[in-house]
């Protein structure tokens, strides 16, 4: 288990004193869970991870790893990185170029507090390499491995000490798209099998959504929203989260009606839109209605029913293979939609869009 309580990290960087990289961050990773810190670059996610690893010393707060308090400002505890029960994979893999594959993996066994006999080292390294399917590569120089193999080598090195906690700092970002997809799957499978508590840092929403038990979305040193992937995707609580995860359409407007069941109505530039309301919104609030491109239905004939039906015309239609990326020009707004490839339309064709009430969300307007 990892517990982070009110963590603060300030960088005093020479002539630029006091940049708050992490402001009061708290979260808990339950045993055996896969937890992701997701956010744009510079949001403080890597700094948080490095504080947990002990590579940075935080300025305030508390960090508990596997029941051991490894950092506490008030109690003046700071366990150095090499005494924490962690394994870590770095963004650059940090494979030591002057060692063989075997030596790289054996390193944690040879330097730690606990010393192992050479037979034990042999056995543990073999197990670790087998876990990542690198058995047979022991005697290669580490630099002779391909990018994907180096990545798995870094993973084997992080796991060989059987740490309580695994920290991963954007481990897939240096791989090409195909390999990244496969490694995403393999990494998750390995984590499930070993049931190792994992903290993952990424800026890639697909990685976060596909691999995690829980996601914390960070921005400017703070956690903006935290929850299971489905929840953060479908029920963003702020414009930032809606924008950051997935692509999204936004229609600005004012709340005109609030119902007791959590739904309501928003007056947009293109008429009234029925939607779900975030708690705390009242009539007259400035809001944006967000709706995902894949939620929008496009009809060539005007459909019947009392849903959100708005007339518009086709702006551009791009065939992307899996779907057609089709923009619809309404009076004021332009909506991006994903439609089946069977849709045959031309620029300027009149269409009707249907915005399902349950998939439209009114959020307080930012700025």
């Amino acid at each position, binding site marked *: 288990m990892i517990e982070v309580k009110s963590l603060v990290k300030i960088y005093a960087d020479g002539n630029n004193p006091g940049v708050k990289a992490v402001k009061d961050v708290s979260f808990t990773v339950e045993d055996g869970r896969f937890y992701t810190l997701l956010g744009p670059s510079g949001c403080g996610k890597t700094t948080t991870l490095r504080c947990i690893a002990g590579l940075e010393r935080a300025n305030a707060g508390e960090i508990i790893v596997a029941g051991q308090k490894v950092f506490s400002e008030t109690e003046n505890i700071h366990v150095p990185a090499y005494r924490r029960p962690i*394994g*870590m994979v*770095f963004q650059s893999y940090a494979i*030591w170029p002057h060692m063989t594959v075997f030596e790289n993996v054996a*390193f*944690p066994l040879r*330097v*730690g507090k606990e010393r192992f006999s050479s037979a034990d080292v042999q056995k543990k390294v073999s197990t670790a390499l087998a876990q990542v399917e690198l058995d047979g590569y022991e005697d290669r120089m580490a630099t002779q491995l391909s990018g994907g193999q180096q990545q798995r080598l870094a993973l084997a090195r992080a796991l060989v*000490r059987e740490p309580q906690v695994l920290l991963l700092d954007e481990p897939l970002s240096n791989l090409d798209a195909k390999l990244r997809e496969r490694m995403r799957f393999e990494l998750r499978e390995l984590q499930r099998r070993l049931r190792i508590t994992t903290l993952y840092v990424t800026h890639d929403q697909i990685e976060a959504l596909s691999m995690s038990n829980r996601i914390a979305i960070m921005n400017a040193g703070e956690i903006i929203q935290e929850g299971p992937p489905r929840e953060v995707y479908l029920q963003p609580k702020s414009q930032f989260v809606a924008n950051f995860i997935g692509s999204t359409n936004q229609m600005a407007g004012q709340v005109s009606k609030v119902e007791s069941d959590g739904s309501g109505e928003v007056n947009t530039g293109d008429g009234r839109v029925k939607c779900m309301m975030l708690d705390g919104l009242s009539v007259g609030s400035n809001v944006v209605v967000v709706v995902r491109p894949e939620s929008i239905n496009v009809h060539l004939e005007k459909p019947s029913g009392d849903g959100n039906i708005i007339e518009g015309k086709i702006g551009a239609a791009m065939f992307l293979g899996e779907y057609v990326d089709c923009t619809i020009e309404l009076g004021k707004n332009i909506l991006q939609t994903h439609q089946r490839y069977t849709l045959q339309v031309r620029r300027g064709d009149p269409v009707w869009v249907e915005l399902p009430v349950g998939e439209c969300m009114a959020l307080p307007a930012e700025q």
Partner: protein
Amino acid sequence: MTTATMPRTARVGFSLDPALLIPLVGAGVLIYLAVLPLLMLFIGSFQAEVAPREFVYTLKNYQNAYASQYTYSTFVNSLIFASGSSGLTFLLGTTLAWLTERTDTPLRKIFVPLAVVPLILPGVLESIAWIFLLSPKFGYVNVFLMNIFGLQSPPFNVFSLPGMIWVHSVGQVPLAFLLMVAAFKSMDPSLEESAMMSGAGTWQTFKRITLRLLMPTAASVLLILFVRTLESFETPALIGIPARIYVYTSEIYLAFNEYPPDYGRGGALAVGLLLLSAVGVWLYTRSTKESKKFQTVTGKAFRPRQFELGRWRWAGLGFLLTYFVFVVLLPFLVLFWASFLPFFATPGWDSLSKLSIENYRYLGTFRPFWDAMQNSLILATMTATVAMILTSLVAWIVYKSRIRGAWILDFLAFVPITIPGIVMGMALILLYVAFPLPIYGTIWVLMIAYVTRYIPYGMRSASGSILQIHSELEEAASASGASWWETFKRVTLPLLRPGLVAGWIYIFIVSFREFSTSVLLATGESRVLSILLFTMFEQGQVTVVAAIGVLMIVTLLSIVAIFYKLTGRIGIQT
């Protein structure tokens, strides 16, 4: 050395001791080495006598130094020597670099290593070899030309300003060559290709694009050559002094060699030279920053486009061959030849019979030679070792420790680059004559001088290799459970080793051939090889000097061979 104070237990306070102690010690050492001598020099140049009981302030030294009948001629000589030499060096170096890097001149690739061969010829020997070749009385080239063309007077006289400029320049060409090769290599070929696509021919492209892009680099190379010539003393000592052509460095030397020595005037001259050199270095760092802004040097290596010279490529080959035979090979040959002669004589069939290994046999039992050889080897080894240990520590603090004010260490380690060798000697004399440390006249004072002068070179190797090590490599060790010491021992040090070895060998070589600092500091017991060469040459034992020179080159060649074996590349430092 810091393990004892590094956090060992799980519960630690933020222990500041190692984090503050090491940088403070580093700063202290650097101030002692680089700043203290300069301070003493400055004070000394204003005091009436050396190591006085009480300080008597006077401007007399400056008056003697800068308001004498020689002031004007020394200034003009120095200016002509430095600008002429830097210009000629630049021209030769750039032509060589361009022909070998950017044209289709035949055989150009084999000239790349050949062009840097003169680097192993110590400046003193370079001067001596060219005196053998171009002396108006017995110079081989002069005698040869007079015989062939029936001339009445020798066509060349090395004992002149043009002679000094020539000799100093050919010794410096490898430096200009390497700097310009680097500049040519880092030029984006698409800039030239787009000029060609716009309809510009070879010459137009070269003139309007290539040359213009090279301007900022060229300016900084010229500047560094100018400063180095101003600071040099080999040619001014061996050619300038006999020819009565004095520049600043020789004025300082003469002030010291008068009886009684005029330390005050020497100090005042040294302060002036130091200021000139400091201004030059400041302009140089500024201009290199400018050229970075210009973006021709991006650090990315391109495969440069080759200019097709057409028929002119044979002219290119002719130039390369002429340069190699007459400028690179001839000095080595004449030294080698002279080392087998009983006394210096013009070459001819009759001198063939006089060839013998008598000089080498004589050296075998000549104590001063072996003492000097031992001193030079010990000094070079110690200097290289101490300088590399010191600079890798400083570089680590500057680039890795993230300590506030680490840039001060970086700055202090850069200061010695502005100190001309002879000024360093002057400053150390003033310091250790007054200082209660009895090392004056021993090789220890030489070691301090060498280490100080070569700290910037060491810094360059050390910081280069430290910056190459991605900090995640060390952090991964830490995250694998390795303590600070184990990380340093098993990860940092093995990764640093190639760079540190290269730096070590480079400093070894420049220490082994050092002349301009040693000339004031190396006396009697502490005499080194370059100084032995100088004094024996002045005494007229020129063929023995040639033999010593050959042995010195052989020693350096073996070092360079090890260098190649260990790192497989040519090092360059400015």
